[in-house]
């Protein structure tokens, strides 16, 4: 049974127990109507609609999607070709939401991308898919072939005069490829170091041409917005943020999973209602609300709505909206060490705070975990976090890496201190 399309627009066609809809089934369920509608609209009007809907990027940063599109040069003098890219790299540890959409309803992603490409008048689009999503790749390739066959992609789409090619690119690995300018370098066949900004990709991106990069979930929001309208979309959110969100939970909860819920659903409802609370014998200790690169939240935050502003006010970020739950039996220092090792390994090595700071943080955390740390190491870690903070590096990897460390030190400092041996007593003479 599929969900109510007006309540759960993202997962309306998704049923994990069967294959995703093929073109015929997707069309029968109202699919590609957004494209049909858009092709008769002025591109700028499409961008305006998306902007007014309040849709914010679901890749982690939460920038207004329509506003981002509006920076692309339009009109006959605009540089060409223009490019549209779907970021389907999904490598943020603890994040498994784009997979649900890619495997569950590939046509809806393709439809969203066609609408977006039309809005910026792109002639070429790429889906940058992470290597490990082999089932997604298979289903996506099948859906793409059907969309070409059905005349929704290729030359002169449905007689509109608008043409678009959509090409899947399978990544060769590395977390940094998810950063949009690093992704662009990877697509150009280069080492995936991020680029300095400005220029922003909207003006000079892939091969130096105007380029928009959006997340999978962001694109999947587009067809419902265009079909059902801005007012409907805004009314879905429980707080000031519009739409629905794929929330998730992993860790030692009773029912880990991914659920489409109204934007602004309280953390407690997700954790206790949908994820079923902690497993028998375990107590909740903290959670990373939106993937590995977000600050820990604790008990006192559980009644906050999971929206951009509330989570930010609590000192963290909504990020990808998929929470990683920490229980009272899991070693916090071990968890932070695991996260920091990941970021150190995935650093592209360009900026000193990231390359050296993360390596140093790993050494300090390892020493603490072995019981060989010193009290001043905790201050050193605090300092390293500031050193890696926003504004000191070319991309957001290092500031993101600092988030779980700095917040663990804030909320769980006693757990670190407990592992540090007391200063040896001065020997009596």
């Amino acid at each position: 049974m599929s969900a109510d399309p007006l309540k759960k627009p993202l997962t309306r066609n998704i049923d994990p127990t069967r294959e995703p809809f093929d073109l015929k089934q997707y069309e029968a369920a109202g699919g590609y109507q957004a494209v049909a509608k858009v092709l008769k609209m002025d591109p700028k009007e499409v961008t305006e609609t998306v902007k007014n809907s309040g849709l914010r990027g679901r890749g982690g940063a939460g920038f207004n999607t329509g506003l981002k599109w509006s920076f692309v040069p339009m009109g006959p003098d605009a540089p060409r070709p223009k490019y549209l890219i779907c970021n389907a790299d999904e490598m943020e540890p603890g994040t498994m939401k784009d997979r649900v959409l890619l495997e569950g309803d590939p046509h809806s992603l393709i439809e969203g991308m066609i609408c977006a490409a039309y809005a910026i008048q792109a002639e070429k689009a790429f889906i940058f898919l992470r290597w490990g999503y082999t089932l997604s790749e298979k289903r996506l390739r099948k859906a793409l072939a059907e969309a070409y066959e059905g005349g929704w992609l290729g030359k002169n789409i449905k007689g509109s005069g608008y043409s678009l090619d959509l090409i899947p690119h399978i990544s060769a690995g590395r977390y940094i490829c998810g950063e949009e300018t690093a992704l662009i370098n990877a697509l150009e066949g280069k080492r995936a170091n991020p680029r300095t900004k400005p220029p922003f990709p909207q003006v000079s991106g892939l091969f130096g041409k105007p380029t928009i990069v959006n997340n999978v979930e962001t694109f999947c929001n587009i067809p419902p917005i265009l079909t059902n309208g801005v007012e409907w979309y805004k009314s879905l959110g429980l707080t000031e943020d519009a739409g629905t969100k794929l929330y998730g939970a992993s860790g030692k909860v009773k029912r880990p999973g991914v659920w489409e819920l109204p934007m602004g659903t309280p953390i407690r409802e997700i954790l206790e209602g949908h994820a079923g609370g902690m497993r028998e014998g375990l107590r909740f200790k903290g959670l990373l609300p939106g993937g590995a690169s977000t600050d820990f939240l604790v008990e006192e935050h559980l009644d906050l709505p999971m929206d951009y502003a509330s989570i930010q006010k609590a000192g963290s970020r909504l990020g990808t909206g998929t929470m990683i739950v920490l229980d009272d039996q899991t070693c916090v220092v071990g968890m932070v060490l695991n996260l920091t090792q990941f970021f150190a390994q995935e650093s592209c090595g360009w900026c000193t705070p990231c390359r050296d700071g993360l390596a140093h943080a790993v050494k300090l955390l390892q020493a603490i975990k072995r019981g060989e740390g010193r009290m001043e190491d905790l201050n050193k870690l605090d300092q390293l976090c500031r050193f890696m903070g926003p504004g000191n590096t070319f991309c957001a990897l290092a500031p993101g890496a600092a988030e779980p460390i700095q917040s663990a030190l804030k909320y769980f400092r006693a757990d670190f201190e407990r592992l540090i041996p007391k200063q040896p007593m001065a020997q009596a003479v």
Partner: protein
Amino acid sequence: MLSPEERAEIEAEIHHYPRKEAACIEAMKVVQKHRGWVSDEGIRDVAEIMGMTPAEVDGIATFYNLIFRKPVGKHVVMACDSVSCWVMGYENVRECLRKKLGVEMGQTTPDGKFTVLPIACLGDCDHAPAMMVGEDLHHDLTAEKIDEVLKRYS
């Protein structure tokens, strides 16, 4: 030398991009698909068709962890060592693989059947711990399940 199939597949990729070199990573993936890994000869073959130097191609190859510059076994086992899997028992998975296959992370079994590697989050965190064997995902891993999964690959 590139086989005719390799050459045809690489040329189909080149066709998607305005600059030939952009297909360099795709070309290495094609070579890896056919030969299992990318040897120095593979690098030279890709360099030749791309009009690049082997050093340039190798510089790119070494950035990406899924371009194998060393030979790997028939099946590559990649166990997720990221945070959700770590919380849910990655260390047991690693121990289990070590016992069953008799090799450490990064090594290949003497019979050349399995190479075991750690891998970052597989996007299956709600079914942690997870691992891939070749192209297949296996999750909610326990010692028994790992045993049973490995038997399926010969």
